[in-house]
């Protein structure tokens, strides 16, 4: 049972200042721990792991951990990750995004990454709020919740990340919580190991910006809320509709075995470049076709 924290220390950047910037009791540190343990359990070397983070509190995680790390622009982590994965499919590319990152400004990138099934693992740290910018409502803020920009209560409905990712075609969809860490370790490791696009929504508390305004004064209050309301999927499914209330299921939601885009592309390339295959006149056909189709079809230029 030992070696949990010391193991984490081995993966932290020793030239980076600790403690990290997160508030006391922020779940992001726990996610970082789970991520490190998962990578360690998979036996991956630090060099083959690339962490791509967006903007927001979650984006800051990248700087602390001794992998290849890229801290990108707001909402765009998955686009950078797609480029990195396609450029070097041997890398294990893991994106860390917040709910604002992944569901609002980067929502389009999320559904397309899922659709094209790029071999990237997406961790969506859902704390129901824009934490770093001061507590404005996000696309996952529950209806009725009070935030800086919904002082009279949120009227809009919240996104269900898991359902959205599944509908968009993700190869693997999981939800974990920062309280149920053993399960989280397992989910994250599975999501990293499997082919194609795998997403883990992680319920993580932000008492500073969300809890404070919504009856959860401290980090402990928020963890109690998570402990009570995150129930394993099997149990949740067995609950009568009336008893579900605020509860949300955690566990495995989708597991498909489609090949990742980078794998399909590699196979295509191998086929096209097989020795003995006649080299087609490359430049002509496509350009010619393009010109013709432009003339014949009613292609609306953007």
């Amino acid at each position, binding site marked *: 049972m030992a070696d949990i924290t010391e193991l984490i220390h081995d993966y932290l950047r020793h030239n980076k200042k600790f403690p990290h910037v997160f508030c006391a009791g922020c779940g992001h540190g726990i996610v970082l721990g789970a991520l490190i*343990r998962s990578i360690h359990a998979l036996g991956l070397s630090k060099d083959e792991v690339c962490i791509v983070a967006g903007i927001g509190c979650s984006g800051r995680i990248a700087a602390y951990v001794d992998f290849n790390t890229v801290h990108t622009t707001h909402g765009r982590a998955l686009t950078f990750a797609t480029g990195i994965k396609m450029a070097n499919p041997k890398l294990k590319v893991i994106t860390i995004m917040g709910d604002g990152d992944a569901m609002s400004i980067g929502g389009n990138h999320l559904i397309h990454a899922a659709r094209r099934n790029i071999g990237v693992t997406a961790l969506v740290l859902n704390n129901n709020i824009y934490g770093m910018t001061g507590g404005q409502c996000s696309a996952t803020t529950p209806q009725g919740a009070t935030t800086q920009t919904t002082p009279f209560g949120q009227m809009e409905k919240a996104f269900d990340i898991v359902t959205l990712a599944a509908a968009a075609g993700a190869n693997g969809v999981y939800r974990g919580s920062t309280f149920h860490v053993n399960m989280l370790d397992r989910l994250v490791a599975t999501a990293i190991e499997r082919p194609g696009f795998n997403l883990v929504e992680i319920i993580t508390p932000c008492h500073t910006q969300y809890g404070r305004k919504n009856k959860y004064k401290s980090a402990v209050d928020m963890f109690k809320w998570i402990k009570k309301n995150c129930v394993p999927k099997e149990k949740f499914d067995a609950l009568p509709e009336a008893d579900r209330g605020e509860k949300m299921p955690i566990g495995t939601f989708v597991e498909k075995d489609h090949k990742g885009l980078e794998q399909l592309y590699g196979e295509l390339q191998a086929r096209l470049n097989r020795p003995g295959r006649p080299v087609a006149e490359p430049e002509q056909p496509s350009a010619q076709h393009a010109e013709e189709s432009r003339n014949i079809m009613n292609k609306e230029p953007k």
Partner: protein
Amino acid sequence: MTKKAKGQTEITIYPDWCKGCGICVEFCPAKVLALGRDGKARVARLDECINCGFCERHCPDFAIVVRGKGRKRRAPACAENGETPVDKE
């Protein structure tokens, strides 16, 4: 869950890293930890520790280390150093 032996551990808390969030104190099943006057976590009842690992896994600041009694800090065990990764389960 099998009953765990108590008092087989040493606990180190790094005060500079601890932010005193209280998660470890609140959820420790054996009530080993407490918040000190400085607001940081401290070991109150070491003998009650059942080495469940909850505090280590849930400390967002990696500030708590629980070791078997008398054990030294082990060498780094990252895969990059050519060692077999430790099986944690």
